[in-house]
């Protein structure tokens, strides 16, 4: 299982803060997982296709090419606006 988390505007638009994804392979890229999530419905497809989407694996910012493994925490969120 991969635990997926959404934050801020993305969380609101998807109306989802956590999502558990069955993990078929031992290791896959964030991009592959993202493609799977886009299949959820047309809203998810639209929101998860934004080019400014950021992602973190195990609470570290990573590019979409990064690997995700079973048991990892994967997060997607819009550009950061703190400070």
């Amino acid at each position: 299982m991969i635990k997926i988390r959404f934050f801020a505007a993305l969380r609101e638009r998807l109306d989802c803060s956590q999502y558990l994804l069955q993990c078929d392979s031992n290791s896959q890229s964030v991009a592959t997982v993202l493609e799977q999530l886009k299949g959820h419905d047309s809203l998810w497809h639209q929101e998860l296709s934004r080019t400014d989407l950021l992602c973190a694996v195990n609470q570290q910012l990573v590019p979409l090419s990064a690997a995700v493994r079973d048991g990892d925490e994967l997060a997607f969120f819009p550009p950061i606006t703190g400070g």
Partner: protein
Amino acid sequence: MSVFVAVQCDDFCLASEYDELRRHSACGAVVTFSGLVRELSNNILHSMTLEHYPGMTEQALVAIAEQAQQRWQLGAVHIIHRVGTLKTNEQIVFVGIASAHRAAAFAACEFIMDYLKNRAPFWKKEHTAAGDYWVEAKASDQQALARWE
């Protein structure tokens, strides 16, 4: 070199942070940055809510402090970021640096703010007379990183 990082709902006290920072007796320079909820000219902002990614935020702030420490000779770094709902003129963020020399203190303080604005997972939602909306990321904040690279 000491690093102190906090993510909290409670307000912070600049004077207490400063008193700790200036205790580093080899340090001749203390620079502080405080970010406040700004009253917009059209006066429509009532408050804002800061969301964050618990766990990741603290790690990100420590990582940013450590990067600053690798670049400059610093005595102490304090970073405090508030979350939750904040009204106009309330304090949002504090960065304080103690260093032997002023150039290092200024650079490290600005570096940390520039990185925090782009790398620490906080998001602002503004509550205004016209409704609630998520703050858009600013290109100027991304550009601010360029000079450190």
